[in-house]
């Protein structure tokens, strides 16, 4: 197979390797930040819900509305409209850090819903047993809900990371970096399909690795699986 000159130049200059690194960097950092924000939000959604530990219907409704609002905007539109926010937070609407802001805004509501539904799966009997033992609601969250839902929470984290990886490639259209940018600038705009295909292949490999490592961690963590 023959690679075009541009591909060879990119490769020899280390730009593709840099793209891989930038993609992984954006994805991992965005996932971590989104999870840190999404986890408490998901817990609040679950706890204040109608069948939750401490129903607070107005709070639940407002949070639910905000979350749904952000989740119903297509990412590409969200990106464009959130450029000023990114500029406000990191001082620029271009570059990796601005993209991370955008990815976090898009992913946090998504993760909050995933967390909410993971916690919902916990058998209500276990919660009842914890209440009978004399646990406060806070203890139930920290010692029962989250530890018991851990495998499911990790699975949600993996799903989010893969989604964020996809978003990060899309972010290239408005100034993001990474493999997405290489594919658009060199592959698409300069009509070099080999560059595009290599980027696609690399993204697929990264997704596979995330998925495989994630599944292994979940399998290790989940004590419901007989070992």
């Amino acid at each position: 197979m023959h690679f075009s000159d541009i591909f060879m130049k990119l490769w020899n200059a280390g730009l593709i390797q840099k793209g891989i690194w930038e993609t992984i960097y954006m994805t991992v950092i965005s996932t971590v930040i989104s999870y840190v924000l999404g986890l408490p939000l998901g817990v609040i959604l679950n706890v204040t819900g109608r069948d939750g530990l401490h129903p607070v219907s107005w709070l639940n409704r407002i949070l639910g509305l905000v979350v749904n609002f952000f989740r119903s905007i297509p990412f590409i539109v969200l990106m464009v409209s959130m450029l000023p926010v990114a500029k406000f937070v990191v001082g620029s609407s271009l570059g990796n850090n601005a993209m991370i802001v955008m990815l976090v805004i898009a992913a946090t509501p998504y993760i909050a819903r995933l967390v909410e539904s993971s916690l919902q799966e916990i058998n209500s009997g276990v919660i009842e047993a914890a209440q009978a033992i004399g646990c406060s609601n806070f203890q139930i969250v920290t010692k029962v809900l989250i530890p018991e839902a851990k495998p499911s929470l990790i699975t949600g984290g993996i799903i989010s990371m893969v989604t964020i990886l996809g978003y990060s490639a899309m972010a290239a259209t408005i100034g993001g970096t990474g493999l997405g940018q290489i594919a658009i600038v060199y592959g698409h705009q300069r009509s070099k399909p080999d560059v595009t295909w290599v980027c696609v292949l690399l993204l697929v490999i990264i997704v596979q690795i995330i998925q495989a490592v994630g599944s292994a961690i979940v399998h290790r963590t989940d004590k419901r699986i007989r070992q």
Partner: protein
Amino acid sequence: MIELKHLGKTYRTADQEIVALDDINLTIHDGEIFGIIGLSGAGKSTLVRCINLLEVPTSGEVLVDGKSLTALSRSELLKLRQSIGMIFQGFNLLEQRTVLRNVCFPLEIAGVRKQDAKKRARELLDLVGLSDRENSYPSQLSGGQKQRVAIARALATNPKYILCDEATSALDPNTTRAILDLLRKINEELGVTIVVITHEMKVVDHICDRVAVIDRSHIAEEGKVSDVFTNPRSEIARNLIFPRERTVLETQGGKRLRLSFDGQTTCGPHIAEMVLACQAPVSILMANTKELDGVIYGYTIIELPTDVHQADKIVAWLKNSGISFSEVE
């Protein structure tokens, strides 16, 4: 002592009100095993959940050792719950924790030091016969073993009371007996007062000292197990004790008598003796008796011969024998 005074619980759903408990009055004494039996939907779970205020009653009072639970602050209530253990039909163990850490859980909440908690948990696992499984996870245990872990967990904080909501309903008969024996042992050796909720008479039969029968949100009757067994006054108790009663009987036209064995009567071939003594045949239309400690409870319905003379002889014999009987319409 646990006292329930005029306890009521009404669930309000969007379109209706469901009265789950209505004017329940019960006293559970220290050291006893108290049974609450009733059919599905009678309100048993609601009742037992009111005892530790997992369910807040809509009227009436729950007094534990004289303290009214509804008057307690939230933190006092959480503290008090540590003195009331609870076990469930579904075991409700933490699936992601080992057996040992499950038993440590209430101690962790009570603020006991980790090392002390582990030591106590190991003692309890020994008591319930699971010391070799402390590092297993619940998914690796059988139902009976899970319930043993749940019992150990319920005992961790040295509670004065244990509430059991259908604790054996998910278990096979042998395992049920083993778990009931364990509860009895805990009652006798540790002096823990136990409240047992069940829909099965055999559970009450096996371990309870006193029993309350709950029927459609009301207490239908209450008393010592032997009294309620001997002389069930309520329809529901009769149905629970002798579940297969049928009223349609095929007969030859003779007078029918219902012989009640009320615990005065010791085991023996009474009907055969009667037939031999009177030299008169009877047909047994129905019999539903059980033996408890060498004493019979239950009833037998017999049909007397159509010959009036023979029938009178049998009635006379019965009057003499001390078996109580009445004519069946």
